[in-house]
């Protein structure tokens, strides 16, 4: 021992190796027979996620299968990450629709402003997290892809009902 080390006088219960060993073994044996297993068996069993979870986007469609989007341009304007590319178009009846609607999910910060700002309740952030791809390009979701998504969408926070009850 080095000189000057503080020596603490401890009671036997704290210095006995045999007792500590036996206590430890009793403890591990208890866990061996009554394990408190908390591991989620992931692919089969999934953790429930919050109703306000903001994941990858989804474009809702009208009953005749067209995107609800009217190409107003609010979402690319409000998007803080500048990840939405929108080119609006207009058909012969004067209905506006998006010619190009692309979201780069890699640039997206999942703030959910696009959903909040959308007057038509067209674009939504989704309650979804299994979205791996083999290429970076795969993460640029075009309109077709956004419309084809089926996962549930985020319920935005309601100031009148802050706890979501």
């Amino acid at each position, binding site marked *: *021992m080095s000189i000057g080390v503080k*020596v603490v006088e401890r009671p036997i219960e704290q210095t*006995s190796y045999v007792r500590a060993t036996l206590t430890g073994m009793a403890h591990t044996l208890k*866990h061996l027979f009554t394990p408190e*297993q908390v591991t989620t068996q992931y692919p089969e069993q999934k953790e429930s996620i919050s109703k306000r979870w903001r994941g990858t986007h989804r474009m809702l469609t009208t009953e005749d299968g067209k995107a609800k989007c009217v190409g107003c341009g609010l979402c690319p304007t409000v998007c803080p990450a500048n990840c939405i590319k929108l080119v609006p178009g207009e058909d012969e009846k004067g209905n506006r629709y998006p010619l190009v609607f692309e979201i780069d999910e890699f640039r997206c910060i999942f703030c959910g402003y696009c959903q909040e700002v959308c007057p038509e309740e067209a674009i939504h952030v989704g309650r979804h997290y299994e979205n791996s791809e083999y290429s970076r390009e795969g993460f640029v979701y075009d309109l077709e892809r956004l419309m084809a998504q089926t996962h549930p969408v985020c319920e935005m926070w309601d100031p009148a009902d802050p706890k979501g009850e």
Partner: protein
Amino acid sequence: MTMPIALFQAAAPGSQPHVIPWLIFTLVKLIAVFTVYMVGVALLTLAERKISAWIQDRHGPNRVKIFGLGPGGLGQPFADGVKNFVKEETYPAAANLPLFVLAPALAFIPALVTWAVIPFAAPWDSPWGRIEMVLAPLPVGFLFILAISSLGVYGIVLAGWSSNNKYALLGGLRSSAQMISYEIAMGMSTIPVLLLAGNVTLSKIVDQQAFGTWNVLNLTVAFFIFMVAAFAETNRLPFDLPEAESELIAGYHSEYSAMKFSLFFIAEYANMVTASALMATLFFGGWDIPFWLWDNVAPHTGLKTLATLAFFAAKVLFFVFVYMWIRWTLPRFRYDQLMSLGWKFLLPLALGYIVAIATTIVTLDALGFARGSVPFHLGLILLNVAAVVILFVLLDRGRVISPAYSRLDAREVEKLREMSTPRRATAFLPESGD
């Protein structure tokens, strides 16, 4: 043509079998024991992972099934085996190749060879004569085990040295120091067993326990020393300093890959099984069924052989479980603690215990109690209770395994403090006079 038929002819029960049946039975035993042993070792890796998982509130391997059947995880050892066979073998550029290749085999073989002399069931009086349920019924069985088990250290030391890696070398050095230190205590701890049995043949040691009491009741202290030393010999926690992951990466097998690494792994588990079998044989009556003489007396039927085999397997598996249980309970010793436990505690204890047991046996003999009689065992058990109380209650004052400081007497600590005070005082004095 009459000669071979004569050799196959039935022999009287209890007599030695002829050469050819003996040869056939030995081959069958050899193949059976080897297969069961290797498959068992493979399954033990799964058991280890499962037990560690349950102790830590996890699930453990639960995915791999055998052809989609059975509980998940059962196929894990086979998946691991396939993985180890197809993995790339790496050879360090600076390694000593012949020794590097030889070392895993040297670690693996002694573990297997030891098993040859352990009796695993009651003998069977077959129509062709008595078949001993041991691969090689050596008269010097126990000495053979001591000799072979010391060879295991060569594999580890050579692996550490030939890898040409500083961590591997440190692991190999630690391992050699540890195994040599604990081998002495291990050998000494078994001398009381030999004193009681009066023989070094393992089957005789089993018989002595079967007709008397199990050695664990007579010689608990010896069992305790043997168990601790066996843990150290097999490099299992809390004595896994040779492979201490956190300090030495993986110690002696840092540089090994694929099947060579796997051989070290198998050797560790094989050693565990062998040490468990030794504990069962020397202290827990081997294949003996407790409180029952049915299995020890003639006629030695096949049923008795099977029943005793099951009991032996249960005992061995229990000790293997204790190995795993302790591994996932205790933290690793520090190196000085390891050495002081081996040399300053276990060795003197074992020597003292030999003297105590020898004295008791001589005294009991002189008092006229026959070996194996009830008063003889009562005397031993009384001594045993006293020894256990002294060891675990009176001596256990933070001295058995201790942090470094408490090995010093309190007065010495005071003296050292006084010695250090003036120096400390001057060292921290502000420089005056300038």
